[in-house]
């Protein structure tokens, strides 16, 4: 067969038009690389947050657009990027895979599994920066999310869709509260997402093991960007966690997301901003540090369509000073805060919740009627106790009434003490607080209060199953039930004390 050169040329021309089926791609050239960020000349039509691909295989996200160049942060630290390397636009902003198969897995900030198990099946790809649901699609917070921690459930109740900040010094038990809240969700049909930002790997490994031991991985996803990760990954991790939470929320599920902690997140963003030469403001944080967290936490809530996202962000303070920049920002964004006091912690009180400085702004509406009935005056009593306690330390002789208050306060504090990973369901908490409200604990020595109350719960559970079940089901404490409980308590006191 004869092939003419003109045939070959026309074939080549046709192939050029057809074979790739794409237009010219917009490219840029790497001009500077350093600290996992690079400045790229070109990419004049790139948009903020767009993902770019380096010819050498690395990927990045554009986070600064300037007149002649763009600044991108690299997604992979292990793939080298060279000067004058070609960079292509992808035309899309950064997306992560989401899917129900992520439950029980430990993933990184890019939603890639890091637990050494099989790849995760992807259901869809979602952008990490999503539109915030408007007020018309939001529902009031009226359903309680139990943490299993009595001092929180009784005094600072958290509703589904609420954002409750956990704030405190280093090692005051912030993570423990969040972990216990996750462990308590077993059987509650709540998906938990634990986002670890800038933590030590050994800590995270311990937490994952703990979840595994308590069977919490059956409903939990762990997103990790440890201290060794790049600033970009530490910056992305909470948004990744939130994107996964939104996926489950859209499926109609209730989600509890823990951000541990947003101080490290702010530090990662500060690092990136300084590398991008953005003007540093207070404490060298950039001007949009408030928006960094507000746009993250505003994605939580209870929604008319779908389920809810309850957020428990954490923030670390120095020297119990909650007036620092990031803590005050977060306090103003969230619907309340649980302040963990280092003095209480050092005095052996667990959880070391400072009752005066803690608040839950919306959770009250979500608290069950039974809990409201038994815990209504608790906060006031505790505050008075702490005031009196401070006063008594001056060596002043106190009158009988004050002494009685002090004794009662000590019992309240003892009752609210809880060991790590020991959680109480709602009905148990109501029974214990009922004893306190009805003064049955006044005759018990402070150190025996907790033990006595727990025994009472066991007694009701085993002997008065119907009453216990009714309390559990109705979540109410009717007058008749209160009467019956009073009789049971008297009966129990006779058995135990006498």
């Amino acid at each position, binding site marked *: 067969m004869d092939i003419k050169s003109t045939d070959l*040329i026309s074939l080549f021309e046709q192939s*050029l038009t057809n074979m*790739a089926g*794409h237009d*010219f791609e917009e490219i840029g050239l790497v001009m500077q690389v350093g600290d996992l960020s690079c400045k790229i000349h070109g990419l004049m039509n790139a948009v903020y947050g767009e993902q770019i691909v380096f010819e050498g295989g690395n990927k990045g996200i554009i986070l600064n657009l300037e007149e002649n*160049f763009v600044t991108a942060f690299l997604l992979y630290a292990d793939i080298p990027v060279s000067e004058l390397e070609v960079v292509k636009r992808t035309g899309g902003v950064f997306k992560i895979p989401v899917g129900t198969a992520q439950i029980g897995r430990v993933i990184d900030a890019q939603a890639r599994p890091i637990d050494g198990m099989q790849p995760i099946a992807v259901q869809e790809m979602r952008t990490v920066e999503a539109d915030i649901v408007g007020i018309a699609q939001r529902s009031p917070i009226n359903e309680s999310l139990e943490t299993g921690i009595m001092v929180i459930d009784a005094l600072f109740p958290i509703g589904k869709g609420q954002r409750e900040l956990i704030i405190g010094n280093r090692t005051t038990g912030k993570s423990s509260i969040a972990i216990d809240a996750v462990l308590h969700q077993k059987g509650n049909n709540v998906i938990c997402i634990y986002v670890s930002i800038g933590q030590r790997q050994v800590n995270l490994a311990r937490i994952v093991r703990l979840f595994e031991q308590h069977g919490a991985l059956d409903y939990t996803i762990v997103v990790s960007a440890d201290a060794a990760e790049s600033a970009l990954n530490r910056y992305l991790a909470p948004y990744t966690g939130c994107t996964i939470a939104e996926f489950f929320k859209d499926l109609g599920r209730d989600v509890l997301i823990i951000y541990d902690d947003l101080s490290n997140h702010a530090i990662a963003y500060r690092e990136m901003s300084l590398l991008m030469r953005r003007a540093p403001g207070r404490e060298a944080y950039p001007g949009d540090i408030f928006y960094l967290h507000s746009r993250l936490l505003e994605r939580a809530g209870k929604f008319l369509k779908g389920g809810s996202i309850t957020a428990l962000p954490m923030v670390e303070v120095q020297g119990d000073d909650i007036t620092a920049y990031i803590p005050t920002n977060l306090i103003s964004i969230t619907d309340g805060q649980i302040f963990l006091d280092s003095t209480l912690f050092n005095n052996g009180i667990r959880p070391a919740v400072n009752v005066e400085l803690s608040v839950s702004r919306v959770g009250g509406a979500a608290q069950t009627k039974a809990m409201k009935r038994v815990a209504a005056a608790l906060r006031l009593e505790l505050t008075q106790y702490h005031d009196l306690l401070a006063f008594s330390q001056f060596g002043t002789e106190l009158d009988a009434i004050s002494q009685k208050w002090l004794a009662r306060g000590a019992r309240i504090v003892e009752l609210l003490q809880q060991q790590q990973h020991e959680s109480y369901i709602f009905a148990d908490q109501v029974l214990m607080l009922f004893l306190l409200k009805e003064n049955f604990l006044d005759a018990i020595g402070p150190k025996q209060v907790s033990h006595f109350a727990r025994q009472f719960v066991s007694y009701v559970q085993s002997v008065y199953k119907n009453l216990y079940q009714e309390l559990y089901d109705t979540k109410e404490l009717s007058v008749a039930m209160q009467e019956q409980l009073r009789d049971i308590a008297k009966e129990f006191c006779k058995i135990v004390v006498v």
Partner: protein
Amino acid sequence: MTLQKIGLAGKYAIAFLRVFGGNITLEMVSALGDLVVFGKKNVSSLALLQIAIFDARAKADLIKHICSKFGLNDLLRQLIDLLAQHGRLNIFITVIEQIIARFQEWYGIIEIACTSAQPLDNDAHDVIYRFIERMTGKQAKITFKINQDVIAGIRLQGHDILWEYSIAQQLRALTTAG
């Protein structure tokens, strides 16, 4: 060359083209291109442009002398004086690069480097010219290069655009997939 210098040079280039753009011919652009090539080949000879303590007049005279060799003295004299006055003769070659790039952009000319593993004959060149002009709507100025790394196929790379259909590109896509 830092990005700041490129940005600054771009501003001088735009200002220059606004005033003298109408006087520039394609031959002049070609001569400007030769000047840039000369400047890049003789970086060490032009190093004194980077030294701040040297007299700006001496630097300007040197540049004017070089420009006269390329027949560009009349065109560039005022630009050189302005750069000397601003103490920015060190970015002269970058400014010329930016003038060429912007002139080409304004007049719909696109510079493309066509890389292939094997030499292409003239007929193939014509096809590629036609292809680029159809795809970009601009007049193509192509430099043909041979690079075995392409393996097979061609790569067409301009200042800020790329079109590639090669085995190397497909291998890269395979290694970075997933």
